[in-house]
C-alpha cells in the first residue's frame, strides 16, 4: 500500500487550479468530470509521477465551518517543501500572494504561511542544515 494522494478542500475548483498551477507552479495531471464536480489533481514538475494533490470541492456542510476555524487561528491545512522559504516568499509576494506568517526561523525548519485564495492557509517550509 502506498501513499499516492494528498488533498486540499477548495472553495472553487477552477480558481484553485489557476492558483495552484499559475501561482504555486504545480502542473495539472487529471481532470475528470464527476457529476457536477471534477476529479482534479496537480503534481509537482519536480516529481511528475509522485504524490498527486487532489483539489477537492468544499460542498459538504461540515467543511465551511471547519475551514473558517482553521483560517481564523492561522492554521495551515497542509505544507509544501521548498528549497528556500525566503526566496519563495519574495517571489510569491511579487505576484500578490497574501501571507499570514512571514518566514520565521523555527529552529530545525523555516516556515511561512500563505492564503491559497480558496479558503485555506498553506504552509511552505524548508529544513535547515
Amino acid at each position, binding site marked *: 500500500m502506498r501513499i499516492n494522494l494528498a488533498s486540499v478542500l477548495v472553495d472553487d475548483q477552477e480558481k484553485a487550479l489557476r492558483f495552484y498551477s499559475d501561482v504555486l507552479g504545480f502542473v495539472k495531471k487529471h481532470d475528470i468530470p464527476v457529476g457536477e464536480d471534477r476529479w482534479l489533481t496537480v503534481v509537482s514538475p519536480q516529481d511528475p509521477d509522485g504524490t498527486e494533490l487532489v483539489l477537492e470541492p468544499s460542498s459538504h456542510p461540515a467543511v465551511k465551518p471547519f475551514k473558517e476555524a482553521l483560517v*481564523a487561528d*492561522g*492554521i495551515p491545512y497542509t505544507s509544501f517543501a521548498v528549497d528556500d522559504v525566503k526566496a519563495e516568499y519574495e517571489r510569491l509576494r511579487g505576484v500578490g500572494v497574501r501571507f499570514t*506568517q512571514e518566514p520565521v*526561523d*523555527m*529552529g*530545525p525548519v523555516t516556515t511561512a*504561511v500563505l492564503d491559497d485564495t480558496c479558503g485555506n492557509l498553506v504552509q511552505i517550509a524548508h529544513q535547515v542544515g
Partner: protein
Amino acid sequence: MACPSAAILDSWVSVLPGWRSFPSTYLDRQALTCVTCSRVGDVFKALADPTRRIILDELTDRNGQTLFEICSRLTTKHHLGSSRQAISQHLDVLETAGLVETRREGRYKFHYINTRPLEPIIERWLKKPEKDGLYRRP
C-alpha cells in the same frame, strides 16, 4: 479575597492624609485596595507565568501573530510542550490584563502586544518619594 498587589499599595496608601478616617477593619481595607488595583493584579498575574513571558517576548520580536505562529514559535524555538488549548488560555489571561489585543482582520485573527498596562507599574517604582510631597513619610 486575596489581592496580589494589596501589600505593595498598602505601603504608600497608608501615608495619605485622612486615611485613618477610612474603615480600619482588615477586610474593608482589602476591599478598597482590590477595587483600585484589580487591573494591576491582573497584570502581575499575567506576568508571573514563564510561558506568558515568552509569548510577550515573541510578540516583541514580531508583532501581529496568529495563534498558529505563536504556538509554532513556542514549540520549535523554545521546546515548550504546551498544547494549542493551553497557549490559547495563556493568551486569554494576557488579554484580560490588557497586555495582548486580538484583532480580527478579514478572516484572520492576529494577536498584538500592548505595553501600556506596564507603564503605571514602572512609574510607581521609578518615582522618588522624597521629590513628591504627597508621599513624604511622616
